[in-house]
Structures are given as C-alpha cells and as structure tokens.
C-alpha cells in the first residue's frame, strides 16, 4: 500500500537520496480518481439526457460541462501545490471577498426563474454563492484557529455561527436557500470537529429546529413570510407528494418515476422521463434522476460509491492534516460534500425536501463544478502538506 497516507512512511527506511513517493506525486491519487470518475459520470449522463434539450446542438450541455470540469481539474492541481497554511493570513480578505461577491450578485445580478443568483460574465454566469462555500470554509477555519485556546467557550461558538449566518442570510435573500443551508452546515461541522461542547451543539440543533418550525409554520400563519412561498412549498412538498401533482410535488413524483423506471440496469436510450422534458432541471438539480433512469441501480450505485470514496477520503484528510487549520478546512469541505450529496440525492428519491442544492461535480454548471474542484484542491493541498511534513520529520528524526 505505498499510496496510503496513513501508513508509517516506508520511505523512511529507504536510503537518504530516495525521494518519497508523496513528494513525487503531488496529489492524493485516490481523491483525484474519485473526482475524475464523477466528472466522467457527469459528462456521460449529460450527453445522453440532454441530447434533445437544445434542438440542433445535442452536445451543448456535455461540451460545456467538459470545459468546466477541465478548468476545475487544472484549478484543483494548482491548489494542490499551494500550501494552504499560507491562506490563513488572508482570512479577512477572503471573508470580505465572500460578502462582496454575494452583495454584488444582489446588486448587479442577472435573474433567472425569479431568483437573482448570478452575474453574467463573458464565458459563463458567475454564481457567487457557490464560490462562497469555499471562501467561507477558509474564513471560518481561520477564525476557529485564531480562537484555538478558547474553543469550548460560548463566545467562539457564537462568533463562528454569526460569521456563517451573515453570508447565509444574503444568499437566502437571492433567493438561494440551498446554499444558505450549506453555509450553516459547514459552520456546524467545523464547530463539531473543533471540539465545541456538546451543550452548545445541542443548543444549536434545538435552535435550528425551532427556527424551522417558525419559518415554515408559525410565521406564515401569522402572515410574515420569511421565505418566498415557493420555497416553503418546495420544502414541505415531499411530506405530501400526491396532494398536488401538477405543482411542487410534481417534480419529486416525476423524479421517483424516472429513477424507479431505471430498474436494475437502466433504460439507456429508451429513457423518456428525463430526456423528454417531463422532469424539469434534469441536467442540474435533478441529474441523479437522469443517472437512475438511464443507468439503473448499477449506475446510481456506482455514482454513490464514488461519492462514498470521495467523502471517506475527505475524512481521511481531516484526520491526517498536519495542523488544526488543515483539519478544519477538511471538515468544512466534508460538510459541504456530505450535505449536498445527501440532500440532493435524498430529494431525487423523495426522502428529503427540495432545497435547491446541486449534486457536487455531477450537476451541470460552471460555478458549482469549479467551486467543488477548488474545495477538493484544498483537500489535496492538506494531503500533500501532511505527507511532506511527515516525511520531513521522519528524516530529521533519523539523523
């Protein structure tokens, strides 16, 4: 197992001039493999499912997604070579950029389907809330590290939650509820990993439950609409899927039909649900339904296994990181991946509400793909630095 990072480095027994494999291979190959595997799944699925979406241009979505994934991969490898620890000193700039970019979208943004989430740039429309996930992970990790001596204090918990809540509220105002929830999940996971007391954590959970009840039930009953009505409908539609098949429950019903009809090995080119426009957003939020219909239990299972690999690898990086900053970044990335995968897949199979989160690396969209790649690039950097530090230490101690 020369590639496994947790093994005591065998290189330490090698002669001194031997360059450790970890330094020769500047990235975690398993992580890279899972990432590239998901990218390929995405392109293959898009190529099949969206062939009829744009008449005369069957490869419209798959070609573009290929470019986004390519750009993302390059960005990932570049990030892998940067020492993430240096990013800590830019924490204020990073947090500032996060707030500014989100506010810029609210100010200059381009609205699609009633929501202002993106700024149109020459090549693609920039969705600040996606890149914001990576920026928030960096800023929060730095904030927690700064308070490392005081991790269990209530002050730390409150500051971290507020630092996440401010951008989350701006993002929800766009309205992009899904990304706002991802932000809060990131903050929660960081506190959890950093060792915040169970009392604080359970208080936070109670607060979330109470505010959910307030936003979804109590406030609308009193005539105050915190969320847009369509958001509340989407969030609660999964509780009663057949009550209004034409409206909010419709998407989920269609999604289940698509996935279910894929059976064991999928319908391939006979797929008619996701490719004929019965299921809206089948190339973005509902791409997992397209996978399930076209490639069946086998295809959906393969994609899930790749995600399991990705997440287990992220957890591995969390544990092996050379310092707390690295662990926390890895925790944030893990939170982002886990939350998005579980909520998105759960939504397509009808066990989670429609919250509007993308499936990382699979859903069509440049901002989402490239931001996820950057996050994985950070994991790579942590992995590389951990390996390098371990190898160096081994050598120093030998002398």
């Amino acid at each position: 197992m020369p590639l496994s990072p947790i093994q005591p480095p065998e290189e330490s027994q090698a002669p001194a001039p031997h360059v450790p494999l970890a330094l020769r291979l500047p990235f975690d190959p398993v992580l890279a493999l899972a990432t590239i595997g998901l990218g390929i799944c995405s392109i293959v699925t898009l190529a099949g499912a969206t062939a009829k979406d744009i008449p005369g241009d069957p490869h419209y979505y798959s070609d573009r997604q290929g470019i986004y994934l390519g750009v993302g991969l390059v960005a990932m490898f570049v990030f892998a070579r940067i020492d993430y620890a240096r990013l800590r000193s830019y924490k204020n700039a990073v947090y500032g950029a996060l707030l500014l970019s989100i506010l810029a979208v609210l100010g200059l943004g381009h609205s699609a389907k009633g929501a202002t989430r993106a700024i149109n740039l020459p090549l693609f429309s920039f969705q600040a809330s996606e890149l914001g996930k990576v920026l928030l992970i960096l800023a929060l990790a730095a904030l927690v590290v700064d308070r490392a001596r005081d991790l269990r204090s209530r002050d730390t918990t409150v500051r971290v939650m507020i630092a996440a809540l401010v951008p989350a509220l701006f993002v929800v105002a766009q309205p992009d509820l899904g990304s706002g929830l991802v932000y809060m999940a990131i903050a929660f996971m960081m506190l959890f990993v950093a060792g915040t007391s169970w009392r604080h954590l359970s208080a936070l959970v109670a607060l979330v439950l109470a505010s959910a009840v307030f936003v979804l039930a109590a406030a609308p009953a009193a005539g105050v609409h915190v969320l847009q009505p369509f958001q509340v409908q989407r969030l609660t539609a999964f509780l009663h899927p057949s009550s209004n098949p034409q409206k909010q429950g419709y998407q989920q019903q269609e999604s289940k039909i698509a996935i279910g009809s894929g059976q064991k090995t999928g319908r391939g080119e006979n797929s008619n649900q996701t490719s004929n426009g019965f299921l809206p957003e089948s190339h973005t939020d509902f791409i997992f339904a397209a996978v399930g219909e076209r490639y069946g239990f086998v295809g959906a299972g393969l994609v899930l296994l790749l995600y399991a690999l990705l997440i287990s690898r992220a957890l591995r990086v969390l544990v092996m990181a050379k310092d707390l900053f690295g662990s926390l970044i890895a925790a944030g990335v893990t939170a982002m991946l886990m939350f998005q995968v579980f909520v998105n897949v759960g939504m397509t199979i009808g066990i989670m509400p429609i919250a509007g989160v993308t499936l990382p690396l699979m859903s069509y969209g440049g901002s989402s793909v490239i931001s996820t790649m950057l996050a994985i690039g950070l994991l790579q950097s942590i992995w590389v630095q951990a390996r390098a530090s371990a190898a160096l230490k081994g050598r120093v101690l030998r002398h």
Partner: protein
Amino acid sequence: MSAIEPVRPRDPRLPVPPGMAMRVAIIGFVAIAFFAVIFFRLWYLQVLSGEQYVHLANTNQRRDLPIPAPRGEMLDREGKPVVDDRTANAVQIVPSALPEAAVITAQAALYQKHLVEAAEAHHAAGVALNVFRATHPGQADHRELERLQAAAARLPTVPVPPLPASAVHVRRLLTRLGGVLAMRPRTIDERVVRGMTALVYAPVTIRTDAGLGVRTYLGERGNEFPGVLQQPISLREYPYGEMAAQVIGHVDQISGEELKLKAFHGVEQGTIVGQEGLEYYYDRYLRGKPGVSKVEVNAEGYAVPDALKPSPPQAGRSLKLTLSLPLQKESEKALLEGIDHARAGNKPAVAGAFVALDPRNGSVLSIGSYPSFNPNRFSKPLTKAEYKELEGSGSAPGHLVDRAVNGQYPTGSTFKPITAMAALEAGVMSPEEGLGAGKCIAVSTQKFCNAGEAEYGAVGLVQALKVSSDTYFFEVGERANAHGPIIQRMAHKLGVGEETGIDLPSEFPGVIPDKEWREEQNKAELKCEREEHVPNCGIVEEPTGTWTVGNNMNLAVGQGELLTDPLQMAVAYSTLSNAFVNGGTGAVVRPHLGAEIDEPTGGLVQSLDYPPRRKVHLNYNDLSLVMQGLHEAASSTGGTSAEVWAGWDQSADPVYGKTGTAQHTGREDQSWYLCYIGDPKHPLVIAVTVEEGGFGAETAAPIARLIASEYYGKSKKFVAGSSQTL
C-alpha cells in the same frame, strides 16, 4: 529504524482538540448511515418497485394541453343574449407532422439560438449600464449612458430566419395553405416557428377564425394538407357592437400584472379574462374552467393528436343583467337623436351619457355613454393610433370612458332639489317666503344673475323650482352658508359625492366642495408648488383664498366646484322618490347591473343581491313641496320642461323632472335632465346629460322623454323645450 521511538507523524503546532478522533468517527457513522438509507431506498425504488415505475413512465409520455373554456354569456333581464360566444374554427399546424419536419425544427432551433443571443446581448447591455453607472456617478446626461440605457431598455425583436429554399414540399404546402387562408406563406412559417419556440409540444394556431368556407375546403381535403388541423374554439362576440360597450367591457389574454392579483388566483397563463366593465367585475363567474387534452409525445418529443379522452372544459356561467335590451337600444338611439338635434342647432354636442334605473331597488335598466366603441375590435391587437383614437385627447372625447359613472361634471339646476331640501330642513327659509326678486343678486363685489338676466320676481319654493329661478337659489345658498355645510350634508345624505357601489370596476367618487375641502385643496396646491418649484400646479388658482359665501351660492345652483356624474344624480333622485312614496323614509339604493348568475344551460346558481346602502329620513312636508315643484316644472305651463312632456299622460305616469344647464368657461353649456316618473307599478328615474349640448330643456329633456316613452310603451316624439334656464 533508529533506536528512538517512532514518532507520531503529526505536527502538534496547535493543539488538536481532544476527542476529535471520536467526533470524526461519529461523522463517519452518520455518512455510512445516510449511504445505507439511500441504497435501500434506491433498491426499493428501482429493484423492488421498478416495474410499477416503468409502467408509470410509459403512461407518462403524455403532455397536458389546455382546452379553453367557453365564456359565460351575458343576458338581459328577459334572458336575451347581450354578449355571447361564437364557435369559430381555428386552423392549426402540428409541426412534427409537416413534410420535411426536420427543416422546420432546424429553423426553429436557429430562431431560438438568435433569441438567446439577443437576450444575452440585452443582458450584457444591462450589466454594462450598471457598471457605467457605478464608474461614472452623477453623469445623468452622458451620451454613452443614453446609448446604454436605450440598449438595455428593451429586448430587440428577433426576425424568424428564412425557410431554406431546399424545403420544396413545405414551401409548396405553405403556399397552398396561404392561398386558402389568404395569408402570405412567410407569415404562416413565422407563426409556426414562433409557436414552436413558445410551447414545444402544442399545435400552433395559424388562424383563429378561418370561416365556414375554409372549414369545408380543408375538411374535404385533409390528406392534401398533412400536418394541418382544424379545431373548434370559442370566440367572444358582442352582437350589439357599441351598445353599452363601456359597461360591458371586453376580454383579452390575462396580463402579467393580472396573474398576480388575488381576483385571478388559479388562472393559467394564456387564459382569456375580462378587461374592464362587467366582463372584469364578474370574471370569476364568466371565465369557466379550462379542460385538458392529453397528447402523446413521440420519440422526437413532438405531440401527435391521439385518441386519449380529453377532460372537457367547464363552460363559464351566464350573467343575467338588470338591463332591458329593448330599452337599452332605444335609450342609445334617443341619445344619438338628441345629439343630432343639438348639432343641427349648431351645438357641438361632443359627448353624452344616460342612465335609467328602477328607484326602488337600484336595478339599472339602461345605461350608456357616447362616444362609444365596438368591443369586437379588441379581439385583434389594436395599433397605437387606433388605441389613441379610442382614448381621445384634447378636444376629441375619449371613447373608453363611461361618462355615466366616470364623468366629472357640475350638474346645473338639477342640483336645486337637493339645495331646497337642505334649506327647508334647516329652516333657512319658509316655503312660502318670496325670494330672488330682480335680475341679479349682489354679494359684496360679485353679481349672481339669472340666465339671460330673466326676472321671475320674488317667488316661493314651488314656483322657484318650476321656473328654475337662479336668484332664488342664490339667495338660499347665501343664507345657507351661515348654517354651515347643510347643502353638502344633504347631497351626501341622498347619495351624491360618494361612490354608489355599482358593480363595475371603477367609478368616480365625486366632489361636493365645502370649507374643509377648500382648505385641503389649498394645502395640496401649496405643497405641490413647494415640491415641484412651479408657480402653480393647477389644483387651486389662488391657494390663499378661503371658502366664500359665493362658493356656497354657486353650489346651490349646481355650479362652482361641484363634480358628480349622472349615476350619482340618479341615485339622489331615487332617494327623494323613495322617501316621497314612503312618508319621508327612503332607501339610498345601490345601483347594479348584475341580477343573477345562471348555469350555462339556464338553471339559477345564485341571485345577486344588492340591498340599499342605507335608509334616510326626510321631512315629508318639505319633501312634498319639493316634489310638487319638480312635478309642476314638468307638467304645468311655464315649467322648464313642461313643453317637452306635452301630451304625456301625467295622471297615470306623473313626471317629476328638473332641467339643468351646467356652464363651462370657453365651452358650450352642458345639457342635463333628471326625472322621476311616479308610475305606481313601474317607477323610473332617468338621468341624461349631453356635453356642449345647450340648455337642459332643448337637448337632455327630450332624450329623457324618448327613453320614458319606450319604457311605458308611448309613442315617441322628440320635443325640444324652449326654456332657457340654467
């Protein structure tokens, strides 16, 4: 390995939180649990219930297309249709069934591409505009800014790309179809491409009303026109054209703003809904519920009509009106006759309105406004010029305004009964007291004179109403001013100067000027002058002036700043008549046009109940004198409208009428007539006004007689009165 203990390969530069490994393990377990749930769910959906979902997926190859519901009819009080629906045959094209469908598809794809490009360019202009604004603050009149604003302001129209010359079969088909429909082949092609872009699976409607000839022709030659369908659709029809057009309203596709209104909750985009008038007010009953036709989507994703049973639309309900169709027709004719007569006498008579209602319950029997328009014109989009013409401007009166409920007029002497009631009840004068001697009344520096400087001598109340002595009422107004706003209060009490509550989307509330009103106007004027930095906003000419006795004197004869409309005056006269036949207690009715909602097949769904707004109490002795004055004015020699009613059977159907002549600076006088006909079984109140129509007796009063003649089945005769009173 050296002798030194192997070290942990971790750098403890910062304390690793205690128990982190345990917490990471918890995360791991959560992840495993989630993956397990998802796998089991997938197993359940795909492997255990897969077949059931395959079945659902195969039946799910259908698309739902709405079938518009026929709109409910409007019927007159006898059940005769006033507005109905006509079945027309629409010619449609199913793009996928055309010869060389791929060519059309490619054309549509290219068009869509152009559309997207245009939208992107438009959007980029918007972004550039924002950037420019941010980088060049305070340059309001920069030329670049103007250019960007123009580019960002509207989406450019995108032309449909030409049909390739190689598509010989489609071209031939379109040419032949164009010949049948009298349309250019290019127009048909454009509609097909635009329609495909708008709604992918639906057949595209090429022509909504192709006519019977086309139906037979195409019906017999179905196989010569592949991809061409004929579909019966229902179209709104207004068989009586301009008749009561403002009240009836018209229909159009629901607009973006309307979709957001509560009144249109649950209405799908593209539905035809009422715009204006009764069509709007009673839309939720009239519009019905669209049905759904299911179409099978074939492998290319286009719809083919199939045998699946459509769910039929639910026709809208009928609205039975209080209007009487014969009376409505004759009333409109009478108004036109009066206008013609006035024009023959060199009066411009540019516009007019009338309303006839049953004073007991407020049922409107006929109502109309001139100039009118044909609502059928709205079935096609109007050009800007056409719309402008309908809206009117400057000297050309607008056609769309319903002057009966939205006119804003002083009423002239038709207001005098209100003044008289107010003054008598307040004890301003006794009915016998002789007032108004001389040609004019002088108050401080102003002189208030009778029309034509006529002299009626000092007369009592009944005589003053009969001959319409202005000096009498000027004097009453002068005295009443000392008693406070008693005339104003009486006007409001009887129903003038407030919304009548008629079942129409808009009505003018009216203005009864008094001291407070004047002060508010002054304030508004001063505020406007301050804010707009202009010498005068036109609300009040002299914002320093106060309410004067002169203002009250003008109001007493229905002049000055008084603004009301024929409907409010008709309500006031109804209130007087109700109190008159009821010993002094009278209902202020709520005028209305809707009588009942019926099933399309005829059964009653709901009768519309419009109870009186309130009851008022008037002194019966005073009221009797006022009514006596009105009756003498219309019946005995020397009365202002007695000549008009010459030969009328006053014993069976006594007429209580008042002429009015409202003066406008720089324009011909406005002719008014208000009357109550006290038929014991079928009482009627009529209000008529003709803008720039001259004296009340010469134009409005004869129109009222024509309307009454139709109602009571008398022979019609237009008798212009010679009374030249105001």
